[in-house]
Structures are given as structure tokens and as C-alpha cells.
């Protein structure tokens, strides 16, 4: 420590890095989040095919960034904390990429009439069985 801190009084300590967000800003973020929830429900009423998933996840990602950036104060947090938290999404993307890679190669399999499901045993609905599945 180059700068010794005196035990009594913390005026010399740098506590100024704590960001106190304004109430108006937090209220704006809340309204944006509620509005985006409405948009999520509204958009789900239309059938855009496979684009529905991308749209839903896109809106959720915007909402998530608002929560992370403002409510979790990440916008004003230190670089190390930003890196630590954001790195979890990096590792998550690795998980998703390899899972999707498996998924898409299995779809090729299914076109070649090779089993599609990893849990495939002939599946029947419980109520089609004589004893109701029990």
C-alpha cells in the first residue's frame, strides 16, 4: 500500500466509485422491461416459423442486458467484475455451440432413417396402454 489509510475517518478513502443510480433512470428501465414483456407476448401471437425463437430470444437478450447493465450496476462496475460475469456467457456459448453441433448432425441422421432420439424406445402415450401405464 503506497497510500496508508487512517483508521479513523474514511474521507481519504476512495469510496466515490460506488455509483448511485438515479430513481428516474431505474423507473425508465422498469417501464422498458414491462413494455418488452408486452412485446414478447404480442409477437408470440404471430407465426414467423423458426424466426419466432430468434425473435423471442432477441427480446429476452435485450431485457437481460437492461437488468444486467442497470439493475445489477454492471455498467458502472469494475473491469474485472465485468470480465468475470461476462465470461460465464462465453462458456455458456461453448456449451450451446457443441450441443447444437450434435443436434444438427443428428438431424442428418434422421433423414437417413437412423434413430433420431437419444431416448428412443418405442414411446406410447400412457392411456393407450391396457392398464393405463401402471
Amino acid at each position, binding site marked *: 500500500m503506497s497510500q496508508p489509510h487512517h483508521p479513523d475517518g474514511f474521507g481519504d*478513502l476512495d469510496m466515490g466509485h460506488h455509483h448511485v443510480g438515479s430513481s428516474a433512470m431505474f423507473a425508465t428501465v422498469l417501464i422498458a422491461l414491462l413494455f418488452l414483456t408486452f412485446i414478447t*407476448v404480442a409477437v408470440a401471437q404471430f407465426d414467423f416459423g423458426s424466426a419466432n425463437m430468434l425473435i423471442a430470444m432477441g427480446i429476452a437478450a435485450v431485457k437481460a442486458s437492461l*437488468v444486467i447493465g442497470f439493475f445489477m450496476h454492471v455498467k458502472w462496475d469494475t473491469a474485472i*467484475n465485468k470480465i468475470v460475469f461476462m465470461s460465464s456467457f462465453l462458456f455458456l456459448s461453448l456449451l*450451446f455451440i457443441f450441443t447444437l453441433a450434435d443436434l444438427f448432425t443428428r438431424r442428418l441422421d434422421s433423414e437417413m432413417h437412423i434413430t433420431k432420439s437419444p431416448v428412443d424406445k418405442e414411446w406410447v*402415450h400412457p*392411456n393407450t396402454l391396457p392398464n393405463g401405464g401402471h
Partner: protein
Amino acid sequence: MSHDDHHAVTIPAPGPEFVDHEVAHHFNTPVQEFQALKLGFWLFLATEILLFGGLFAAYFYYHEMYPETFVLGGKQLDWKLGALNTSVLLLSSWTMVMGVRSAQTSQKKKTLIYLGITVLGAVIFMCIKYMEYSAKNEHGLIEFGHLFDGYNEATGQLPWFTDHDNVMASVPHGHMFFAIYLTMTAIHGIHVIIGAGLIIWIMFGTAKGRFHAGYFLPVDLVGLYWHLVDLIWIFLFPLLYLVP
């Protein structure tokens, strides 16, 4: 500060209704204490993202395998209750951030009010969740009484999925959607309950005057946990209730 010079570093209370904060002896400065604990908490939150990330990966996998099952399964949930719960959580996230802000500005009474409303949000959320689970139980889509019974080896059927009304009869592996729905929402629900407990604990500290402009770290960290719970739900809502 040299090591043989062991003064306790104290952050003085800003007023008579607050108490001083004594920095733990293994930290040299309040800033060091704040940053170390906050970094640790962000690391914990990163592991939470990975925990739920695994569940989301499972969701996407089976959604791709059995899209009709997931779309039909999603229709068995009441999106209005889901949207209501989303709004409840978003509002409670706002009261949480306002609670943290009140602690940062040494407003004890306001902190208690905002945190109290946040706990109320958690209670409303869990009540709505309970109503939803009861409906699933009634229709035999998730029979909670048989959740841990072994599956029937002869038929391969799961005791907790009987689907009395045959709503899932037209799709393969109808139970898959409900298995994923229950796993994701139950683990999320456990987080809601733990979060509410932590907020109540923080409220006791606030009442004792432990948190003020000089020291509000526990309020801040519990707030981060609560926002994470909200963050997960933001993705769960469209994926489970409005299955794309």
C-alpha cells in the same frame, strides 16, 4: 498500514440510528474488502449462469428433437399467469434496486419499505407458481405425489405423467416438456425462496442500522442475487409459456 500496526479500520456510522462498520481484519482498507467480496460474489453468479445454462441447453436440445411436443406442452400452461409472474418479478427487481439505492443514501426507512415490497413480490410469485403446479397435478401432467416413484420397467411409463385428459396424446414423449418445465421452474423457485430469505435477513441488518452510505455491501450482493433470479425468468417465460 504495516502488519504489526493492527488498528481496526472502522467506517463510521453517518448518524445515531446507524452503527459503525468494522472492516474485517484481513483487509487493509474498506475498498479492498468491498472489491474482494464483490468479485467473489460475481464468481458465484457466474456459476449460477452455468447451472441454469445446462438446463437451457437441455431445453433447446429437446425442443429441437420434439418441437410439436414442446409447442403443445406450452399450450397447457397459462401464459397469462406466466406474464403476470414476469411482471411481478420485474417490479420486485425494481423495488430491490431502489432498496439498494436507499441503503446507499442512508435512508433506513425507505430501504426497509422497498425490501419489504420485494419480499411481497417473492411471495406473490410463489403463490401463483403454486396455483400453476396444482393445476398440472390435477390434470396428471405432473403428479407431485409420484414424482420420485420409479418408472414402470415393463411399459417404460413414468408414474408422475398420466395425462388423464389425453391432451398430449397426439405428440411423442409428452412427458419431456413437463419434466423440463418442472426442473427449470422448481430450481428457479428454490432461488426465489432463498432470495426472499436473504432479503429478510438483510432487512434485520437494516433495522439494526448496519447498512448506510459507508457500508452497504450485503444489500448490494443480495440485490445482485435477486436480479439474477429475475434474469433467468426473463428467458424462462417465453421458452415455457409461449413456446416458439
